[in-house]
């Protein structure tokens, strides 16, 4: 046997070449993701610069009036869009975080194995529904229902898509939080239970503190998902570019603005056209920051055990 192996020296050499080339190929593949990021930055940066040649950086980030299409006096300020984005995101987070977290707690700490096996995939279906469907749902169902309760609510508003976006990201928050809680070793739960703690006390005083980094990271990911969500707000939030806190009125998010302009009338070379790149760039930086934050948080708050 060892002799046969010796005799296979020939193929050994071929093997060595394979061993050498494979990592190179794999690295090339891994680099595609880097190229993608570079690609995104390059696509956005050129046009963004063009935009800031025509519109002052200061005005863009400090003004409150966005009237890109006005033939007489176009004004570019991203604040109304940021406000729209923040408002819808805030609402979404207010829906998704409590429901997502309690769902995670229920699944991870209370539910029987069988119940979890049934409930978890069902909840995850929520994440699989195309956002366009949610948009439709928000506009034709949630808004009318809400209007029965809230008289002043406009047919397009920030509230309804915010809520629906929240529902959409429940599974994300629930899933990731549940993972974080599941990875808390059982020995810790046992330690607490052996002291006579109830399930609730175990959960809130041991499991959640131990899983907090993962839980917060899930919130942050949920937030960045909400920030980047497009179709729900495009359909259900209208296109008013008001700088307002009034969530009962139509608002526009950064993403919806990009859809409006790209599917609209903007001619290349005009400030409107360039403005979508400046908005996209801002959006990119926003989500980038959120992700960095998520990573920082999971590192910073990771409990050692």
């Amino acid at each position, binding site marked *: 046997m060892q002799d046969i192996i010796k005799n296979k020296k020939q193929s050994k050499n071929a093997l060595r070449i394979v061993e050498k080339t494979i990592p190179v190929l794999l690295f090339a593949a891994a680099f595609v993701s880097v190229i993608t990021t570079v690609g995104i930055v390059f696509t956005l940066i050129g046009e963004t610069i063009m935009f800031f040649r025509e519109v002052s950086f200061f005005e863009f980030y400090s003004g409150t009036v966005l009237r890109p299409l006005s033939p007489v006096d176009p004004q570019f300020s991203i604040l109304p869009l940021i406000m729209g984005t923040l408002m819808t995101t805030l609402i979404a987070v207010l829906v998704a975080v409590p429901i997502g977290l309690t769902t995670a707690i229920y699944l991870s700490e209370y539910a*029987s*194995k069988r119940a979890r096996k049934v409930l978890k995939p069902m909840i995850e279906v929520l994440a699989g529904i195309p956002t366009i469907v949610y948009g439709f749902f928000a506009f034709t169902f949630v808004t009318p229902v809400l209007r029965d309760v809230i008289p002043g609510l406009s047919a397009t508003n920030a509230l309804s898509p915010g809520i629906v976006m929240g529902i959409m990201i429940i599974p994300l928050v629930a899933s990731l939080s549940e993972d974080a809680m599941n990875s808390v*070793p*059982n*020995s*810790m*739960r*046992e*330690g*607490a*239970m*052996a*002291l*006579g*703690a*109830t399930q609730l*006390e175990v959960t809130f*005083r*041991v499991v959640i*503190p*131990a899983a907090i980094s993962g839980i917060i990271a899930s919130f942050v990911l949920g937030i960045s998902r909400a920030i980047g969500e497009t179709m729900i707000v495009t359909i259900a939030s209208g296109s008013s570019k008001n700088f307002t806190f009034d969530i009962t009125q139509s608002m526009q998010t950064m993403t919806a603005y990009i859809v409006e302009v790209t599917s609209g009338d903007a001619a290349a070379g005009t400030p409107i056209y360039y403005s979508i790149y400046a908005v996209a760039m801002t959006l990119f930086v926003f989500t980038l920051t959120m992700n960095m934050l998520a990573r920082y948080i999971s590192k910073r708050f990771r*409990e*050692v*055990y």
Partner: protein
Amino acid sequence: MATTLRKNREIKIENKLNEEPVSKDNKVIYDTRGLNLWYGETQALKNIDLPIQENHVTAIIGPSGCGKSTYIKTLNRMVELVPSVRTTGEILYRGKNIFERSYRVEELRTRVGMVFQKPNPFPKSIFENVAYGPKVHGIRDKKILKDIVEKSLKGAAIWEEVKDRLNENAYGLSGGQQQRLCIARCLAIEPDVILMDEPTSALDPKSTLKVEELVQELKKNYSIVIVTHNMQQAARISDKTAFFLNGEVVEFDQTDRVFSTPQDLRTEDYITGRFG
């Protein structure tokens, strides 16, 4: 095999004893009667009868997988955390059947502390670890908590080592210190019985020694059930020893007798190192 002989107990407890004993000294605190336990389809404990006496150290030995952990976890019903578990028979704790519907398991666990194989402190400060139990049970008073923490840490013979770093994370401690911290945590709720599942198996020799000494010390005030795979340890520290095999109690007697004149061939095989 070097067996450290212990002072003989006056009263010989019959294996499979069923009558309640009378003398205070050998009062049965935990009485297991006809206990069977299944994980799903597989039976892990078979018709266990085992009286555990107050202020004794009862050692449970046996090869891996024989059901030692399962049994000790049944004593505080921790085994029920495994969803598929089913039991028949009864365990009387101070005369009350812990499997009864009305029996509140949290109350049981307040009386019966547990120390695990791997030290499992919470990822909190040393202080918070020890204070956890009292806090859960409603003690809020800072001063009382401080007293309890100090007393428990002293009881677990770790006070001197940690008194200056009570606010540091428990994971900064060595394994042996962590294990003693867990014992302190368990003492903080002033239990009646302490269950220990191979408490030294993850520890180095020196820490092992410390914990063993501690067990001897604690015996004065607590009843202790200790699982161990280290026969020398069982011989050194326990008053009574139960030998488990395949979910059954093969032999249960005074420790010195189990190690010097085992009644069952399988026990002999095991303690002479034929298997395990």
